[in-house]
């Protein structure tokens, strides 16, 4: 990875000039036949791909109002054009959100609107040729579905929705992305994105128990498949072995231990991430989410709590109830959803975020911290894009911003904010979200991290920041790789519950 040079910081936050074609051919690996077929997609492009693609587009237009309205409504005002981190980092004009949408909109106009059929040149309409399809594959895999563009668009046009539709069309003609489709295959087969089988997980967890015992002298448990536990924890599988993710897992376990909460992980459903979102496929989203419902029913838990993961929390918070009936109001004919409704404890929001859980416990004074344990850090907080713009915590607008910050302030003394133009709802994606966290996309990942790195550098220089907390497995993995390329220590990134873990006092209450 050493051969990848980061783009230079901008001295003034000016909008970069265009470099057409800069990111042409920088897309990801194409999925081989076996991987596509495992998900029920055609293995590769076949002769009739054109008609199939247009038919799929028509199908999506009739099932997704978002796509239909977004295709029509854009006035090319350009408000979104400089808002995408991939555009800022690459300067490729086709990475401007509106231009990314136009890759599909031009085809929509040609096949689905009268002016586009009559006067294609006038309204920027074009036929769906093989070149156009390749362009889709390339540029729709340089979007992390972070929704930043949607915040600034006068009609809320969300390029993420367009990207998802494009990826779904590509999959439907056998032109899938290797990384995302391979991972979805693993979830179906084994139960998590990393393909870690149950026995390996149990091994890891036992090792963790020993480590924590050694470090603290306390018997903190990491239970697996415990029937009748109160809480089922669904967490990204990276938490089981990757650095710094694992430190947050230890943090959750300590919180459960200190509050005397009985909890369990599930070997069958050991993944919070749901890559069905990335490829925009409702069936995949739903099938993957169903594993969690099944685990909750089998284990008979009262609460479902989700670990630190951005896209996963978006799916859990915004979509689980729709997909599986985990919240309130399930279909009376859906026997399993009805069982779940009766089983879960509705005094709590279902599902809850681990930060909601911890913050509730802090407010109830059930946890004791020694803040000085985090004094070696000057901490800042990176709002992960899908938590910030696609979900909520606490049940009031903006809770997803307050609650993690409240926790950090409760467990540490030194906290500073990054530039407000890059936090809260305006936060930048880490550069690795939306199914781009793969080595074949390293170039776009490094460039896409530019705006965040600039503002991190600023607080490092001005305030001495040496720790950037976040609550997303993808952010943690992406930054761990990208920070050294920008000249930071890789350990600068870590989880909020890593800080909790440092400061928590066990066996005091």
């Amino acid at each position: 990875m050493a051969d990848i040079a980061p783009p230079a910081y901008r001295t003034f936050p000016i909008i970069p000039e265009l470099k057409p074609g800069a990111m042409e051919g920088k897309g990801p690996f194409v999925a081989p036949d076996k991987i596509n077929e495992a998900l029920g997609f055609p293995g590769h492009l076949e002769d009739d791909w054109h008609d199939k693609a247009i038919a799929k587009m028509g199908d999506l237009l009739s099932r997704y109002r978002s796509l239909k309205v977004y295709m029509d409504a854009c006035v090319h005002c350009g408000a979104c054009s400089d808002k995408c981190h991939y555009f800022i980092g690459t300067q490729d004009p086709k990475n401007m959100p509106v231009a990314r949408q136009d890759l599909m909109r031009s085809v929509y106009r040609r096949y689905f609107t009268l002016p586009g059929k009559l006067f294609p040149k006038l309204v920027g309409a074009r036929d769906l040729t093989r070149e156009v399809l390749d362009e889709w594959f390339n540029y729709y895999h340089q979007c992390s579905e972070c929704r930043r563009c949607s915040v600034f668009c006068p009609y809320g046009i969300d390029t993420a929705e367009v990207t998802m539709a494009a990826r779904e069309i590509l999959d439907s003609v056998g032109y899938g992305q290797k990384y995302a489709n391979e991972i979805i295959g693993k979830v179906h087969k084994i139960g998590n994105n990393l393909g870690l089988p149950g026995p390996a997980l149990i091994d890891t967890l036992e090792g963790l128990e020993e480590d924590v015992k050694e470090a603290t002298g306390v018997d903190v448990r990491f239970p697996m498949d415990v029937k009748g536990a109160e809480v089922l924890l669904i967490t990204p599988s990276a938490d089981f072995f990757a650095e710094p993710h694992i430190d947050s897992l230890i943090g959750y376990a300590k919180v459960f231990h200190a509050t005397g909460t009985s909890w369990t992980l599930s070997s069958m459903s050991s993944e919070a991430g749901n890559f069905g979102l990335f490829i925009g496929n409702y069936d995949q989203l739903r099938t993957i989410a169903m594993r969690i419902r099944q685990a909750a029913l089998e284990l008979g838990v009262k609460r479902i709590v989700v670990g630190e993961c951005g896209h996963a929390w978006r799916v859990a918070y915004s979509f689980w109830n729709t997909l599986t009936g985990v919240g309130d109001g399930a279909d009376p004919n859906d026997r399993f959803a009805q069982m779940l409704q009766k089983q879960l404890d509705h005094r709590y929001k279902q599902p809850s975020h681990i930060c909601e859980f911890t913050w509730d416990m802090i407010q109830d004074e059930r946890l004791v911290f020694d803040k000085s344990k985090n004094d070696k850090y000057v901490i800042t907080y990176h709002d992960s894009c899908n938590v910030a713009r696609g979900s909520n915590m606490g049940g009031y607008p903006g809770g997803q911003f307050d609650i993690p910050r409240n926790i950090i302030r409760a467990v540490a003394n030194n906290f500073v904010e990054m530039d407000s133009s890059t936090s809260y709802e305006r936060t930048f994606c880490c550069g690795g979200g939306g199914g781009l966290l793969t080595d074949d996309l390293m170039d776009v990942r490094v460039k896409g991290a530019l705006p965040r790195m600039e503002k991190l550098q600023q607080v490092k220089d001005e305030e001495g920041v040496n720790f950037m907390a976040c609550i997303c497995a993808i952010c943690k993995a992406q930054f761990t790789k990208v920070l050294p390329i920008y000249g930071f220590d890789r350990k600068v990134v870590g989880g909020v519950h890593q800080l909790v873990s440092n400061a928590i006092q066990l066996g005091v209450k």
Partner: protein
Amino acid sequence: MSTLLAIFIYLSTLVFVVGLLQRIRDYAGTPAPLKIPTTPAPTTGGGVVLRMVREVVFFESLFKGNLWTWVSGWLFHFSMLLVVFRHLRYFTEPVWGWVDFIQPFGIYAGITMVAGLLGLLARRIFVERIRYISTPSDFLMLVLLIGIASSGLLMKFVGHPDVIMVKNYFLGLMHLSIRELPSNFVLYAHLSMVFTLLLIFPMSKLLHAPGLFFSPSRNQADNPREKRHIAPWAAKLESEK
């Protein structure tokens, strides 16, 4: 000539009304299967109404997005709104009190409308990014609106056509009778352009006006955990199980 124009006016108005209603029905009938409100998202229906009002009246998101576009765009739209209100006097007899009251403001609005449009056009021409994303139709749309506004101003300040006759013509059209229109070139140009705009409305980017109200990222309340949201086609998957 009056008759020819009358036919065009009827035709374009028909396309406008039928096309727009059909489009709106289409939007309303297409489900939004998932909850996707964009932050800052209100958690209640009342909050959504407030958010929508702020978007329509103040262009709130655009204000966050780009100040210059916001200034030009807002100036153009609200000037246009005033100008449209001012034109109600051609269709009402007697003229409503408040329409009478805004007449003088409507004239200034014509000027600020052109100013706003020129600002938007300048952005399209001089800002590299915006030029890149512009299609010929984007320019034509602005030129058309500038044409409408400036031909209107021309009639106000230079060659007055007989406005009583104009009013009679429109009152006549409203009762399906075609009367004489003053043969004034600028007037014909003005009206042809206005009704061209109506003609293309339901098949162009002007659909942003109804589109905003149907945009799921703006019109949904953020309450997925409290209330199950499910589209009819998605609910079917459930009973298949």
